[in-house]
């Protein structure tokens, strides 16, 4: 219970005095909304991922406003559609920071888009939340990174799969920095666990024919296939794999499958049995999540999004930011950093989340799940995993001015 002490007394009477003096000014300021930016791809190649993120983003704004807004002001979303196009990303990011003067931005999906907008927000001192699972290594005090990184996911799912299936791994990955860095982590974790990566193949994002690869995999006879394949063309791999009757022969483990709505695009026959690892699944069993999913359903009864880590984490970003604003009584980023770096634990649909002050990455629960009939069933949970990869290269406490994306060398 609150006891009235001297400090609180001065604060409240002081505020009352200020209020009575500046009443007209405050009345106007109260009507003035706090702007928050949402920068998600609503069209173009990544829209199947961006649209659910944006839906959850808007739902979070509505929830904050229904609870009375922040600091007595309503919250207003400023939403642009960068159309999966990097030049639009930089244009809209600048616009948000300079013209709209938003208090915070949620957004960016691929690492390319993040590295386009992160320096812009850093320069204009606009607080930025990146809510995507990614390859790790961003060191920037201005960015709060809540998604999972390979040290949290790949390192868990590899030994799990090796126990289940065996030690010989065949890696297939998308041919850009995510795929390359992730497959390097795969190799490292496989070798740490006494296994062997017998082959790593990279595919440009527009490759849609995988017949030769499927034959090569059969010739190599791995114990399982590790896929870091990204995007719509690469979904063809899972179809053709099932079409060749390989599903019952060699299991597939993926680091990225289920970040978008892939699980409901593939038929159950094509998708059943695929293993993945993320910081959130709809199947996470806690009351916060049950209530969250019910609210999503109520907010979007007709076009209910399939919630994956990337959209749930967008909700986390908004809630963590709102909590910090309430506690700091300010929207200034220095004040918010202090709250978020204090080691607070947040009770969110994905479980308990806190922010590592050294890296501004999330310490969070991660889960291994298996796809059955278009729904992920959780197999194992790893509570409170640290972002150890980024911790290897980044210490914002020692160097708060850092502004870099490290490609962690292995």
């Amino acid at each position: 219970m609150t006891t009235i002490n001297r400090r609180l007394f001065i604060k409240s009477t002081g505020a009352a005095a200020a209020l009575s003096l500046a009443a007209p000014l405050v009345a106007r300021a109260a009507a003035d909304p706090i702007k928050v930016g949402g920068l998600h791809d609503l069209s173009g190649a990544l829209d199947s991922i961006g649209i659910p993120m944006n839906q959850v983003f808007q739902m979070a704004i509505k929830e904050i406003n229904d609870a009375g807004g922040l600091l007595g002001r309503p919250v207003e979303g400023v939403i642009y559609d960068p159309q999966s196009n990097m030049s639009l990303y930089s244009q809209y990011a600048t616009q948000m920071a300079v013209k709209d003067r938003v208090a915070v931005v949620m957004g960016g999906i691929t690492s390319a888009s993040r590295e386009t907008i992160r320096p812009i927000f850093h320069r204009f001192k606009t607080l930025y939340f990146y809510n995507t699972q990614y390859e790790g290594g961003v060191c920037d005090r201005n960015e709060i990174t809540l998604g999972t990184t390979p040290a949290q996911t790949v390192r868990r799912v590899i030994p799990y799969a090796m126990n289940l299936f065996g030690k010989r791994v065949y890696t297939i990955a998308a041919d850009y920095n995510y795929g390359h860095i992730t497959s390097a982590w795969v190799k490292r974790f496989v070798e740490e666990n006494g296994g062997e990566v017998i082959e790593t193949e990279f595919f440009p994002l527009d490759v849609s024919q995988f017949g030769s690869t499927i034959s090569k995999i059969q010739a190599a006879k791995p114990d399982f296939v590790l896929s870091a394949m990204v995007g719509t063309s690469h979904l063809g791999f899972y179809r053709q794999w099932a079409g060749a009757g390989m599903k019952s022969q060699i299991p597939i483990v993926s680091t990225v499958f289920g970040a978008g709505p892939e699980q409901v695009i593939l038929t159950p026959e094509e998708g059943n049995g695929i293993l993945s690892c993320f910081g959130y699944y709809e199947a996470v069993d806690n009351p916060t999540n049950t209530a969250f999913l019910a609210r999503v359903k109520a907010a979007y009864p007709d076009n209910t999004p399939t919630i994956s880590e990337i959209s749930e984490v967008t909700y986390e970003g908004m809630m963590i930011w709102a909590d910090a604003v309430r506690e700091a009584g300010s929207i200034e980023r220095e004040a918010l950093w202090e709250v978020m770096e204090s080691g607070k634990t947040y009770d969110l649909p994905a479980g308990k989340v806190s922010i590592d002050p050294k890296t501004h990455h999330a310490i969070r629960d991660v889960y291994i799940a298996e796809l059955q009939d278009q729904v992920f069933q959780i197999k194992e949970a790893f509570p409170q995993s640290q972002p150890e990869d980024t911790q290897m290269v980044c210490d914002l406490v020692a160097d708060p001015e850092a502004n870099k994306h490290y490609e962690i060398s292995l």
Partner: protein
Amino acid sequence: MDYFIVVALEMVRAVAWLVLLSAGLAIIFGMMRVINFAHGEFLMLGGYTVVTSTHAGVNEAVAILILAPLSVGLFGIIVERLVIRRLYGRILDSLLATWGLSMLMIGGVTLIFGNTVEGIASPFGGMAIGAYQVPIYNFVLIGFAALVLFGVWVVLKFTRAGLIARATMQNPAMAEALGVRTSWVYMATFGIGSGVTGLAGGLIAPVTGVVPTMGVNFVGQAFITVITGGAAVITGTLSSATLLGTISQATTFLAGPVYGDAALLLVALVLLRLLPQGITGRIFKRSL
């Protein structure tokens, strides 16, 4: 041994894939000298016809073999009447117009179905060759590629309609003088070319899934095959698809898909430097 069979089969499948992708384009380009830049979107339309009608409960085979070619063929006829007809002999203009059409189609389909991948399961499952599993559907693709080429050949060579079509392409003024209504021949040719493209799109749908922007992934390969092949519809398509398909697939097996694509482009580049009119511009000159 079984590995070589699998590799060989994969090469034949790659050739069949190129034949299917480009046959409709070859008919339209080879016979009418119209560059249909919306070719990829015609494929996409065939794919969507199959996916939506299958989801509506239509038998998969009916959807692929009848509905897809029929609906895309009809669409092609409408396009020919409204747009292409006004642009005969103006290659650049028709290229621009069909490019615009392709954007319109991508936008329209996105509006209706949304920009997400939809798909149907690949039929038939797999079969074993030695220690390997291959999709039975590969044989379906190979079979239909052969059937399409054979069908076009029979029509052009042995039917009266084929004779009229060839006459119109060779000398439209003379054909008119002999009582052929050439504008109808053009319309029918464009319709049939579109129908074949629709069939190909339908056959592709179970392998890749469909998305409004899928056309761009295929239109390049289709154009390269047709241009490399030259003017003759059947010999051209078959010879260039065989050459490009086997070389790119062999490279894919040896070095990976990036190099496979690069090899395909390199071969096409060299061939067009040596044979600017395509393979059938120099060799097999009098063939169909």
